[in-house]
């Protein structure tokens, strides 16, 4: 498949919901170590609501799907990750516009818009030990893949791989944003839960493109 359509977007969202549900306890566990232990709960509550909405609504473009994800996450997740991820999906939706399907370049643009949205709201920089540390390498790897002539699915594959490495790379960091920043040196050795959940969502996007 070369361009990613509405089915892909819906599949992405359902896969994200599934993977978040599966890893709920793990994500809350990561958050318990350096935050307040609710990240899995928060996202699971949000993505369940998203799936419930999807069962009712019939969004007909990738952008419409992502808009639904954005507004639902914003109104159900709360915490830090609700507005931040919500903004990511909102900006992604705006980047996708009304297009019925997204080619490789549009996919990179979507990822970049999402990342920029999180940065604008959360003011985090790479290395601050936040979800940005998954999104930023993902965007960069996606751009490189695009530059190398990859199709949309391969772009997402590259993004997902990079996001996973980015999440892992948060382990040794001291946090400068979010609750983990209160811990100082004690955050070292723990993975950032938001980076990990972002990597899961990007892997879901890639899998939906590859297998969908």
């Amino acid at each position, binding site marked *: 498949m070369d361009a990613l359509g509405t089915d892909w977007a819906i599949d992405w969202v359902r896969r994200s919901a599934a993977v978040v549900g599966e890893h709920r306890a793990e994500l*809350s566990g990561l958050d*318990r170590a*350096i*935050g*307040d*232990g*609710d990240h899995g*709960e*928060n996202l699971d*509550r949000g993505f369940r609501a998203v799936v419930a909405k999807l069962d009712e609504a019939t969004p007909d473009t990738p952008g419409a799907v992502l808009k639904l994800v954005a507004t639902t996450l*914003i*109104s*159900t*997740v*709360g*915490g*830090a*990750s*609700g*507005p*931040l991820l919500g903004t990511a999906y909102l900006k992604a939706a705006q980047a996708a516009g009304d297009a019925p399907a997204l080619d490789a370049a549009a996919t990179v643009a979507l990822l970049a818009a999402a990342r920029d949205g999180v940065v604008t*709201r*959360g003011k985090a*920089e790479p290395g601050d030990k936040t979800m940005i540390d998954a999104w930023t390498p993902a965007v960069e790897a996606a751009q490189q893949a695009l530059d190398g002539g990859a199709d949309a699915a391969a772009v997402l594959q590259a993004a997902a791989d990079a996001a996973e490495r980015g999440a892992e790379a948060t382990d040794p960091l001291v946090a*400068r*944003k*979010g*609750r983990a*920043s*209160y*811990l*100082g040196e*004690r955050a070292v050795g723990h993975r950032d839960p938001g980076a990990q959940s972002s990597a899961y969502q990007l892997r879901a996007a890639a899998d939906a493109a590859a297998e969908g």
Partner: protein
Amino acid sequence: MKKLIRDPQTVVHDALAGVAAAHAGLLRVQTDPDYVVRADAPVRGKVGIVSGGGSGHEPLHGGFVGWGMLDAAVPGPVFTSPTPDPILEATKAVDGGAGVLHIVKNYTGDVLNFETAADLAQAEDIAVETVVIDDDVAVKDSLYTAGRRGVAGTVLVEKIAGAAAERGDDLAQVAAIARRVNENVRSMGLALTAPVVPHAGVPSFDISDHEVEIGIGIHGEPGRERIEWEPVDGLVGRLLEPILEDLPFTSSDDVLLLVNGMGATPLLELYIAYDAAASVLRERNIQIARSLVGNFVTSLDMAGASITLLRLDDELKALWDAPVETAALRWGR
């Protein structure tokens, strides 16, 4: 996990039902979206004051809704900021035409969700001012971090801003008073045990029978430092020294001393901690002009306490002394 609950998923909802029934004359509880609002809201011509945040800190914030304090409180899930919708609805419900002050504890989630709600309210032509509370000296402040947390000092901001609104100050004035309190208040806390969040069912951190977490927040986050237990004077000193140095508080300052319990520490111990703190202040010739001892900003069933000092001037004293009628703080009415 043993708790007096029905279901970990419904604790906030069930508690709100209890709050509604127990304080019917004072407040109303709205559901879907959930918020607690003064029985007589909106009060025409008065600045409305809304606060909120994750649940699990009771009596904060719902216990401070009423005459002379908050007009509405927006409870999120346990330890999780509420989403913008209920904040927006609460803001609309308390706007009496003079605008609304949002009092927000400085956590990324609270700040972002209140920000969105304020944007939406302003889009509906309600003037909103936001004051972010960051009194916790355990956290190093910097432009490059999330900054200090808002902790027990919040209750002092809510009381004093509430009195300013009640006496008729306009939105800018109420916001200025709230900021003045925030600028003059400093807090720090310790934990002897970790809270058990209902949906988690296990303590938020592991801590042994002889350890103390210093510099904890109010969400079961671990603190900055773990030490061996020591008698109260040593522990209180570890909280009070950074507080005193920070503002700094100096000789002949008039202060309000708040010794706040984290939920599971008995009043007997809080008064002992108060005594320990008062001794230090006496030595430094700092005058305790007002006092508050009890559980005001808690962390579920965490054992521990925090110390808060607010530097008072005559106006802050008068606003503190002004009548207040809420479930958890009441005098003069």
